[in-house]
């Protein structure tokens, strides 16, 4: 039950702001260096795609670079977190040994390790990869531990009393029951990886990636290119959130009836 005004209002407000920005920047009321006109930003975006030589930033290459580092780091961190989480969830000895270390790592932002990683691994892609993986790892391992530990003992006893062996127990009882929490971890892990990637690309000493473009364009006050990169970051953040994460949830736990997401 949306009222007509309700439907028009956001377009009017955001459209109006854009128009004001454009006019202000064109007439010089807004400093065009600090507030480049939307049209200039679109041109910088288009040039970055079609004729990178003119802007200095080959945006598709930067995007591809960011996305491949994200994928790789997410997979490495996710697999490590999953394995560690299952081990710590199953064995209380592993859990008790790991918990002080994990408790120490949890409140430290992953990107805070970047300087350490740069000294140990050297500047460049491996450092970014390590930070992205670390960011994903800590989210995944926490939620996996929670998931595995909160599987009702009754399920396990029941399956065992019906003659299930350890292997069956793991694949058909423990894992499905822990899955909603594990998926939450994977979801949070992907978001954390993406955050850490953008941060680490800014000060990780690399020459590629969206984070690099943001920071490099800032250094040269190429604000139109900076805004273009920011637009791309926003677009990919939305695409990750809406396109990937929501869909993964839909195809797994929602379909299997394990959880229902709230429809806004």
């Amino acid at each position, binding site marked *: 039950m949306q009222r007509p005004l309700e439907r028009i209002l956001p377009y009017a407000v955001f459209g109006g702001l854009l128009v004001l920005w454009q006019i202000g920047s064109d007439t010089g009321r807004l400093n065009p260096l600090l507030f480049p006109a939307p049209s200039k930003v679109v041109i910088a975006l288009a040039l970055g795609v079609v004729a990178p030589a003119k802007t200095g930033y080959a945006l598709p290459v930067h995007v591809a670079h960011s996305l491949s580092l994200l994928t790789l780091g997410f997979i490495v961190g996710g697999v490590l977190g999953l394995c560690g989480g299952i081990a710590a969830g199953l064995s209380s000895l592993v859990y008790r040994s790991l918990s002080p270390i994990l408790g120490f790592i949890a409140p430290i932002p992953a990107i*805070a390790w970047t*300087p350490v990683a740069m000294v140990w691994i050297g500047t460049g892609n491996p450092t970014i990869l390590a930070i992205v993986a670390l960011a994903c790892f800590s989210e995944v391992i926490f939620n996996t531990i929670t998931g595995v530990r909160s599987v009702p003992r009754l399920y396990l006893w029941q399956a065992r009393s019906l003659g299930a062996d350890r292997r069956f127990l793991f694949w058909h009882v423990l894992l499905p029951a822990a899955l909603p929490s594990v998926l939450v971890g994977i979801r949070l892990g992907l978001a954390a990886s*993406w955050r850490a990637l953008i941060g680490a690309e800014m000060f990780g000493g690399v020459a590629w990636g969206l984070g690099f473009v943001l920071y490099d364009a800032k250094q040269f006050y190429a604000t139109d290119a900076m805004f273009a990169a920011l637009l791309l970051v926003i677009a990919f953040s939305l695409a990750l959130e809406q396109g990937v994460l929501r869909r993964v949830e839909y195809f797994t736990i929602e379909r299997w009836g394990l959880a229902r997401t709230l429809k806004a």
Partner: protein
Amino acid sequence: MRFQQFLRNAGTSALALAALLVAWEIAARVTRLNPSIFPPPSAIGRTLLRLAEPSGGRSILGLDIVSSLLRLGLGLAIGAPVGLALGLAAGINRYARSIVHPLVNVLIPVPPYAWVPLLLVWLGPGNATITAATALSAALPLAYTTMAGVRGIDRLQVWAMESLGGDKRDVIRHVILPGALASILAGLRLSLGQSWRTLIGAEFLAARDSGLGFLIYHAQQFLAVDTMFAGLVTLGVLGFFLIYWLVTVIEDRTVVRWGVMTRR
């Protein structure tokens, strides 16, 4: 029985941590790698003490902690009320919602570090940029959860209040605020975590002379990994108290005590 179990768990954890530290210490000493790059725990401890020690009436670490906490506090003091107001407005008024909802939905998955170059261009390096980035990261999650919390309130309660003669103010004060408080506090937890991460990232890029992020980042110029670790340990301890302990205490005093939320 419970207490004994706790002691046993804590004992294993302490033992594992001690074993890790001893192994690290021995490895660092035996391999004779450059102690500046692979510092043993004892060296990190010494650095931590040296940084904390007041020299000339001032302790470097104390100064960094204070300036980080001031920026975080200021960012929260600006961002949280803004987020709360936006969320409440969007929850109560459909026209406000039609503007705030798309805005928050688009901005919330964006890595907060991505705003730092933009803020650097607008506000220049220093406290203003760091505080603004922190405030932004505090406002968004809070606006989102507040909006969801207000929307989740049972209509019947509002009608009951109105039929008992309550005006709009009574509804907000006695129905909407208490009803949404659990969501608001959940949002506050998210906001704290997010602005804590942003604070450190922004201090990497924008701090001029102090802050824990500044300490860690600038240790890189001297390859002083012991200083970085001293900063990371401080981050871990401070972050734990801020993110887990503080909000838990607030929750216990309010929503848990009122029976709106139960602890698992």
